[in-house]
């Protein structure tokens, strides 16, 4: 086996030095009746070229050469080449959690830089070293708010990503807190009146997403006012991190839960991505996950360490703020490199391009359908209502190698034939025009299928 650095003779010699006669002597503590006496029924050992072929074939059975208007929590942005060059350096790729600070300063400093940039972008005071993803991050943020307030009710906007809400529900069910859904109004955003009426003395927090699942920007200052009046906390979830280049950060929030996939992380069929929780400084002790802090060595040189670990499971066990241990460090490094590449001006310009593309797409596509929530400010996603059923519409688009908008029927049946479209800097005018032309074709063509 080519990964194993031992010759048969070396194995024999080592067994002799240990003082056993054969390798199975070292497995003698496994009761005999449970010892496997046959090969596992898995594919035979393959050569490297066979492995590459196997996955090339798998890749060929996925979409290839399609233009796509999908977003909905996973966004297609350009990934600068140096991201993969740098994260594939073995010193980053093959090191563990930086428990031994003296020989992991590289990882530690990069995380410190990550925490700083997340704070700058979200307008929060502190940020952790990452969470699994945006959905579990939102769920942990809710648990954090429940601990802080000591209250048991949670209000979750229906405009939060439906899968985030499902995950939140899974986490909440045995925490003894109850999650209520908060309706959206005619403008596709949190209904402020309903919010005001739903808040009680027992509301721990309100979870909203901005830009929300329909791509619309929530009125965070107004929501925060209402929420804070009742002594509850406001959690803002951000699924499209690039929006922060042009959309005002939710500075009125108490906790921000960000999914940073848009910052240079491959779509990879849904993961690994990079969640992160940022918050106001006063909530530091309730923060889940790892934190890196600056300190000095005995010669006064600056260095970085994992810190405040008394919040964490390896010290506090069942009283920890979370059970998280392994997080998404390498993915957080990808986002750190991405943000360094784009920097202060680039992130703005990038977001501006996304805004422009989506604006153009709205103009082109809404001629052949109805743009829902038309007057509300949005980033780069929008909901289109069509006469034609989404399945038919998308089938026609697929014939032209275009993956159209995502049908919302599964989660929002009240919206009828609604599809969620996304345009990013990678979407070309030509692709938009082509999709619009296909939309314009008579649905009679679809009925033939």
């Amino acid at each position: 086996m080519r990964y194993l650095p031992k010759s048969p003779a070396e194995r024999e010699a080592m067994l002799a030095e240990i003082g056993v006669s054969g390798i199975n002597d070292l497995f003698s503590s496994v009761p005999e009746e449970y010892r496997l006496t046959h090969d596992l029924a898995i594919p035979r050992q393959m050569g490297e070229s066979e492995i590459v072929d196997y996955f090339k074939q798998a890749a060929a059975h996925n979409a290839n050469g399609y233009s796509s208007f999908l977003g909905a929590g996973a966004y297609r942005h350009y990934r600068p080449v140096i991201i993969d060059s740098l994260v594939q350096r073995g010193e980053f790729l093959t090191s563990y959690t930086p428990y031994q600070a003296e020989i992991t300063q590289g990882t530690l400093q990069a995380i410190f830089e990550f925490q700083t940039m997340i704070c700058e972008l979200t307008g929060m005071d502190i940020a952790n070293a990452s969470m699994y993803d945006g959905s579990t991050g939102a769920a942990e943020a809710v648990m954090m708010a429940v601990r802080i307030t000591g209250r048991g009710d949670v209000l979750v906007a229906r405009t939060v990503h439906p899968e985030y809400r499902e995950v939140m529900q899974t986490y909440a069910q045995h925490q003894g807190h109850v999650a209520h859904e908060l309706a959206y109004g005619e403008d596709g955003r949190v209904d402020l009146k309903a919010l005001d009426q739903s808040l009680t003395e027992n509301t721990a927090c309100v979870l909203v997403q901005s830009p929300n699942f329909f791509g619309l920007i929530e009125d965070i200052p107004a929501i925060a006012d209402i929420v804070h009046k009742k002594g509850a906390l406001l959690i803002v979830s951000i699924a499209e991190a690039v929006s922060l280049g042009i959309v005002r950060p939710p500075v009125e929030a108490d906790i921000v839960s960000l999914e940073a996939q848009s910052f240079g992380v491959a779509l990879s069929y849904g993961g690994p991505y990079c969640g992160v929780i940022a918050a106001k400084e006063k909530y530091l002790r309730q923060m889940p996950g790892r934190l890196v802090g600056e300190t000095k060595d005995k010669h006064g040189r600056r260095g970085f360490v994992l810190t405040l670990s008394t919040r964490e499971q390896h010290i506090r066990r069942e009283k920890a703020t979370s059970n998280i241990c392994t997080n998404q460090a390498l993915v957080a490094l990808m986002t750190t490199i991405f943000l360094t590449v784009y920097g202060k001006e680039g992130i703005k310009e990038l977001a501006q391009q996304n805004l422009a593309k989506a604006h153009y797409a709205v103009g082109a596509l809404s001629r052949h359908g109805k743009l829902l929530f038309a007057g509300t400010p949005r980033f780069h996603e929008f909901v289109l209502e069509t006469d034609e059923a989404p399945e038919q519409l998308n089938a026609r688009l697929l014939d032209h190698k275009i993956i159209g908008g995502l049908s919302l029927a599964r989660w929002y049946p009240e919206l009828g034939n609604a599809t969620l479209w996304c345009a990013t800097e990678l979407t070309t005018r030509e692709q938009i025009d082509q999709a619009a032309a296909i939309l314009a074709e008579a649905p009679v063509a679809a009925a033939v299928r």
Partner: protein
Amino acid sequence: MATIAEPISEKAFTGTPRKVTAHITQNEALMFEKSSPGKKGYKLPPLDVPEVDAQALLGSAARESTGALPELSEIEIIRHFTRLSTWNYAIDLGMYPLGSCTMKYNPRVNEYVSRLEGIAEAHPYQPESLSQGALQVIKSLQECLLEITGMDAITLQPAAGAHGEFTGILLVRAYHQSRGNPRKTIIIPDSAHGTNPATAAICGYQVVNLKSNAQGGIDVAALEALVNEDTAALMLTNPSTIGVFEHQIHKIADVLHARGALLYMDGANMNALVGKTRPGDFGVDVMHLNLHKTFSTPHGGGGPGSGPVACKKILEPFLPTPVVAESSDGTLHFNYNRPQSVGRVRMFYGNFGMFVRALAYILANGPDGLRQTTEDAVLNANYIRAKLEDLYELPYKTPSMHEVVFSDRRQVRNGIKTGDLAKRLIDYGFHPYTTSFPLIVPGALMIEPTESESREELDLFIDAMRQIAREAEENPQLILDAPHSTRISRLDETGAARKPILRWKPNTE
């Protein structure tokens, strides 16, 4: 720069590291300190649609400033992160014997195949008809993992070990609930990893602590006394965190099952079992695996991981939504209609990129390679044990599997603790072993070499540990001041926690 192992007195013994020579590393400031206005590391193509006025479109929601993000050119960015990388130790540089972490070689073909365009650019919501390759990867990996564990059903959704524990205990809870009563407690041995009790708590269970027996294993009589109608499950790590197989495993399972409780296995130590024995055969009801340990996906400085949960038939109805299913025409799809499911534990389908890597690893090994891997991992741990047990205290003499746990008892007499020995090991060119647990061994040295070490590397490690043992006797201050060869010396952790500085600010420094 300090040279390696500067003798603090001429007479006292100072060891000679054979694996390393000091060399220069580059200094590098924080990226923010290197930034200057107008530098750029990016170039966007010209916009092919009309420009828009953000202020007009977004109104009061428009952002004014993007804050203190850096401005740097591409070469500076390359150097910045390359310099940082050289400050890290890594498996690619040498043995990384962190116990319980299974720091094995991360094959590069895994990285290559996970970046193939049709895989890396697959959108989670692209039509299932255009995702058959991805679905096939999921299905194939599931089948391999079921065969390896001997279990009946599996979910790949959890993102890491602790997330797998969470999912597994939710299954336990849903199972009991379906029988009318979720029960109240989870029994956890005092040797367990911290995530086990933390998980039980977030699943709404009380933790009942089980004291280990004199061999560091499960005290079956004590367990029997603890299990009752309130017990939902025992969370067992097997081999245990001291690297010992619970040879009474069937009795443990029987005791639990007799009272309707379930056996959960923390599969962190599966690298000791693959191809040699299967949890499904020895009575485990539900378990998690760590693809980032046993199945070679890279740790990446702390993640990402992947923590599949495998279970017996009785728990299958409760698995998270969705599950992969086969249609009558042979194509694959996701089934969302799972009325008894515990729900979703993560958006989309899990850390798919890790599935690709783990499957590539399994294919590269085959049944014979996986078995040899396990055998080599166990061989290496026992070799280290045989070569060091005369100098380091072995608190439990039970046979070791993939890791060996010593204690610092003999060195403590000279005021030297496991953490100090660990720091000195750095000077010898090794990443330290695990120092912080298991809690049943005060001052633990938890050493897991994995199969990836050659005999030469093991011998260097053993030589280092032996020289350090002598230094501890004859030159303790040298160890207390270690490491001597790193860019920075020991850091003020107390200060870091007392006055936390968790981000750079424009006005400091």
